[in-house]
């Protein structure tokens, strides 16, 4: 049994520690928001956050993820994820939608590290694959999210400024 910290909860999984985290999530825990697209870290559909960084769960082993803070698409919360998801909906990004949780995870990890980037800088860090070709809408959504985050930053005092 390996204990994993997922979305703030401790979860025990019986998956082999040398098996990919993706299948512990999907099969042991029935958390199916994280998707299987290629199984070889090429496509990014399996992206989760591990200690705040976008990681490809089809490649990261259960033993590597143990003891770290794992966030899946189901557990995203906070103003950056909220802005990204709202932007995704405003830009009507998903078509078949299968790759989109991976994109949302990748984009939120970039913006959670640094929201003072241009859309081009953010997009240059996204290597996920979409077969429905929603790339124009993704570009628009990233722009919308950045504007929203900038607006929130102006509207509310930053942390620690009191």
């Amino acid at each position: 049994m390996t204990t994993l910290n997922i979305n703030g909860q401790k979860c025990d999984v019986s998956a082999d520690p040398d098996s990919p985290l993706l299948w512990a999530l999907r099969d042991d825990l029935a958390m199916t928001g994280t998707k299987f697209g290629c199984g070889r870290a090429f496509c990014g559909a399996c992206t989760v956050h591990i200690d705040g960084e976008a990681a490809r769960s089809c490649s990261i082993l259960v033993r590597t993820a143990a003891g770290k803070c794992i966030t899946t698409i189901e557990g995203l919360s906070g103003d950056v994820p909220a802005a990204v998801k709202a932007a995704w909906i405003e830009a009507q990004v998903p078509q078949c939608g299968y790759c989109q949780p991976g994109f949302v995870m990748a984009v939120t990890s970039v913006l959670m590290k640094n929201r003072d980037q241009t859309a081009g800088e953010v997009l240059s860090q996204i290597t996920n694959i979409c077969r429905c070709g929603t790339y124009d809408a993704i570009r628009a959504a990233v722009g919308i999210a950045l504007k929203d985050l900038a607006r929130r930053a102006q509207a509310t005092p930053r942390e620690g400024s009191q």
Partner: protein
Amino acid sequence: MTSETTSSRGSGIARRTFLVAAGLIGGGLFVGAGVTAARLATIDRYRLPAGEGETSFGAWLKIARDGRIEVAVPHQEMGQGIYALAALLAAEGLRLPIEAVRPVQAPTNAPFANPTMLLDGLPFDEHVHGPLKDVAIWTLDELLRAFGLSATGGSTSTRNIAEPVRACCATMMDILTRAAAERFGVETDRLKISAGRISAPNGETASYAELAPEAAKLSPRAIPLSRLTAGTYVGKGAARADVPPKTEGGAPYGIDVRDKGQLYAAIRHSPRIGGTPAKVELRQQTPDIRGIVTGNDYVAVVATSYCKAVGALEQADISWNDDYALNISTKDVFAAYRAALDDAGYKSHFVLEHQGDVVASRGRIVKATYQAPYLAHVTMEPMNATALVTDKGATIWAGHQSSDLVKYRVAHAIGLSCDAIRVVTPFLGGGFGRRADVDYAVKAAEIAYHFKGTPVQTIWSRAEDIRNDYYRPAAMADVSGTLDDTGLPSGLRYRIAVPPVTDRFFGRVFAYAPQGWLPDRSTVDGAVFSFYGIKNRIIENLEVDLGIPVGFWRSVGHSLNNFFFETFVDELASAAAVEPIEYRARLLGAAGEGQASTRAANVLAKLAKRNLEQPLAGPEFGGKTGRGVALSECFHSFVGQMADVEVAGERIRVKQVFAVVDCGFCIDPPNVVAQVRSAINYGLSAALYERIDIENGKIVQENFDTYPVLTLADAPEIVVEIANSGADIGGVGEIGTPGIAPAVGNAVFAATGRRLRSLPLGLKTTIAPGSPV
């Protein structure tokens, strides 16, 4: 002899085809009349099943227990937005906010049909009308409605459901208003309808749900439909209800099914096409590994998790019998194509169009040979299905493109009746035509058959998915044109060597489907019945089939022929020393007045306008820039594309694409833009990167490393302008795909002077530039 039927030169095959077709139609009329009499307007008589507290209205609408309206959709949601479109039409027709309507998959044991798709495939000229064609269409339509074959494909979903859903809405509103009129004791024309409530002048009001019990007692009347025009949502669009769950990870796909006690199967197919399992032995024997199943051409290990199944499959001792396996390679396919094209007496040969007298045309000859590779679909969600089989029946959970085909094929495979098969359809992580073939559901059922009473989910790895596809066929075409002294082609000969995809698909569906009786029109889609005015033309296909599995890929034959044909048009323009847009305008002008050429000319005019207003930008990467165009007519819609490229070294960068779309009428314009962008990117990915190679009967490619696809970094900005002509609604989902390859190829020519005649576009494989023959 009209232009509807095949060759006027009286070749034996063509005449036989005509006679067979006439016989079928004649026989069909007889059968059709009988069946129709027995099940007249079956779908029109069908009523959606309604449970406690629910009321259904016809085949399409139901007031659910929570008061919301459910609209039944006999098509699957694969990203094209048909669920949202059905909800939009229902909301419009019932004068409700879009949130009050939810789309649901139509019941599978109901006679929904998609005649539009099959009728589109008939070998008739779309632009010519006549009694033979009308009778054929009517008979097929009736047969399909009687038997109820529903499917999603051919960019037909919207066209298929728009009228029936609107008609059902009109009928339902009529019944509700009549019920309200009775309840309130006033004339119907004094009632007010707003926000889902019907009100009397004195203020009495009732919701649709409240009126439903009385309404159900009234008999429905057919209400004449007005022509589709802009309304609250129609012509503007509406937010798709599937977008939030797809963004948040809550939207279920076939691969996400998690039933209690579910087992998982990892499947491996024969590495060579046509191989069968010989020796099969599990090596891992742990309680989690539940067994190994041997199928016709596959082996599957079943375990308590997919991971464990994969591990046990890797370690199993499996060998294959290759006695009947293919041994050919891609080069053999192209050699066979070349031989067929060179063989004047080639037997499996259909003439799909023959106008005028090509032989008599005189003038300067322009000739070229084009080719394109096999392509895989590569949906983001790999093939999978979950099956629960008992002695009495089976349930299949899968993303697919036809619930009827799933039922029929699974029933056939496991020896049950169709009625005993229940199909549950979640969202599809991509279809693109792959999921029209339901082999993944059949295999899942066969595997689950050995674990009766337990749901078993069979997942294909990406390698299995790519290596066991039904590919867009490879093809080779010889095209030649004779330029008259104005530089326009007075004669055109188009010969394509390609397997008969539709025949093969139906051969997989129905064991007794006739093969080779009728020409497969889809193989020349994009070349045949062109809107250009080429007076003397002959379009032929040569059926060459070496046994590689082939199927429907986004835009089907258009994906081949639009590249071949529009590149050739560009070569004619070059030979005539006329600018490509101007040349096409002249070709359209030569066609004279006709709906097709007018629509194409309008689209072309928009390209010309854009070309002037947004000139080609300079190079950003130190390369050469160029702009190319292509026109296409695909599934009754017209698309013009203009691609701006920069060629630096051997790398082709597509910087921007401008597309003009005439799809008749847009119910949801923002979604049309999204679909056209999607289709362009899908076609561009293939144009730049994709190819499937076969070596000694084995597929070479297996994942995104060996089968690269378009990524965010190399996807161009795509600007879509909608320019509707007001014609009938045309297809939308696939129409962007055909034109991007020729537009980019023509742009590369403009930039470098190198003419690319094969796909994927690559400067290493270019035929050396030279003057046309």
